């Protein structure tokens, strides 16, 4: 039976793992390859690197990071941020990544998903969707209406005209083989995943959905899968700050009857 995945996400800038709020006050948290290896040892089912390097000239360092990681952490590796062309995706894959995640670039140029899927297969193309809940219109009838979300880009700073569920369905038609769905309302708030958003999307697509944004504790991971229909759950700060171990999250998921990969080395 297919296990539900637990995925730590690392923000990488200029070849180093950084931590910060809204891209400011970044602090150096160490070497990405070393941290990825540690997470893999602790039971991470996959690692996501999010390249938040601001300057284009810093991009080359990401390839080096991927190369070093692929030579020591033998789990799947996804790289997001900064890839805008088929050639750039090829470079990232050839450095040792398994998948590339597109966000702003996919909104700007949806054909990019198709071109990359045709070249490397859908399984290597992840579409990251940052969604923000639209305010409900006033009135009794509106309160009964189902919630809706809009797609935002540039780390939430820019709104688009796209409705999130429709965009999700379209990206899959275009060639995305997996969706990384982040609730911008919950991101960084530690108030739990937006399971309504996850369910709205996972019920409409056949590809796996990765839940992101809002994890506070193991119970949230269970809810993302059980209530949101997520196939995998991604989190950053709760792992980095060692509030919860990957093993503890998986133990909670297993206790809730969800299939997870328990590793011998994980311990706790």
């Amino acid at each position, binding site marked *: 039976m297919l*296990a539900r*995945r637990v995925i730590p996400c690392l923000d990488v800038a200029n070849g180093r793992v950084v931590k910060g709020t809204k891209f400011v006050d970044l602090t150096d948290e160490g070497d990405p390859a070393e941290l990825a290896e540690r997470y*893999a040892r602790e039971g991470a089912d996959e690692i996501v690197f999010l390249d938040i390097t601001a300057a284009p000239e810093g991009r080359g360092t990401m390839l080096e990071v991927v*190369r070093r990681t692929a030579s020591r952490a*033998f789990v799947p590796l996804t790289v997001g941020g900064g890839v805008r062309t088929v050639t750039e995706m090829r470079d990232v894959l050839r*450095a040792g990544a*398994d998948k590339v995640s597109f966000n702003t670039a996919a909104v700007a140029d949806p054909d990019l998903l198709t071109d990359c899927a045709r070249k490397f297969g*859908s399984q290597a193309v992840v579409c990251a969707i940052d969604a923000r809940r639209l305010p409900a219109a006033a009135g009794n009838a509106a309160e009964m209406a189902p919630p809706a979300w809009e797609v935002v880009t540039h780390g939430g700073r820019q709104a688009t005209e796209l409705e999130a569920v429709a965009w999700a369905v379209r990206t899959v038609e275009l060639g995305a083989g997996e969706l990384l769905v982040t609730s911008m309302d919950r991101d960084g708030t530690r108030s739990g995943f937006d399971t309504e958003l996850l369910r709205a999307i996972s019920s409409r697509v056949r*590809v796996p959905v990765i839940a992101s944004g809002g994890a506070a504790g193991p119970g949230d991971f269970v809810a993302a899968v059980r209530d949101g229909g997520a196939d995998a759950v991604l989190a950053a700060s709760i792992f980095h700050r060692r509030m919860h171990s990957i093993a503890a999250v998986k133990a909670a998921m297993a206790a809730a009857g969800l299939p997870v990969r328990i590793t011998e080395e994980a311990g706790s």
Partner: protein
Amino acid sequence: MSGSRLRVAVLDYGAANMVSMSQALVSAGADAVVAAGPSDLSGVDALVVPGVGAAAPAMVHLRERGLVEPLLEWVRAGKPCLGICLGYQLFFDASDEGDAGDAPTLGLLAGRTVALEDAPTLPHIGWNSVEAVKPHPLFEGIADGSYFYFVHSFVPVPADKSVVVARTTHGRPFVSAVASGSLYGLQFHPEKSAAAGHRLLVNFLGLVAGGAA
């Protein structure tokens, strides 16, 4: 053996993930050689055919690099060869994953590669349990039902059931590992499957060393 490390050639035919495959082999105790042409196969002890992607373009790349005939000769000579994911699928007669829905492949094993049926999610991405159909040295020391990493939408259906070593279920059960003489095929990625994958590659190298002795 004589104490020296085995040399394993990883066929490079385009977009395949060469870095992880080579590094995983090194970590399992071999010297990995990236083989982009026939001349790179001299002096190697085993071949690995990696691969993620579609069958039709993969066959085109293999042909362009002059690797098809050397690969066929290698396997027909009974030398050890391990196919992973798409590489495993290419061992069979043909694949439905072509531009016109029919791509002829290497024909080393009888059977056809078809789309996964009744899968709850597609592509089949993630860690799934691999269940033994019969004991095989490739899985020595690995608990039955261990999780390995999969990423694919198609799967071969071997005509000869005697080659089937393991099965996995995603919707319906499918064949996730085969062995026929010194030809081994895996639908999952040992190079991405942490400790279980490492052990499997060590076991493969053990089979290569045993056969060469």
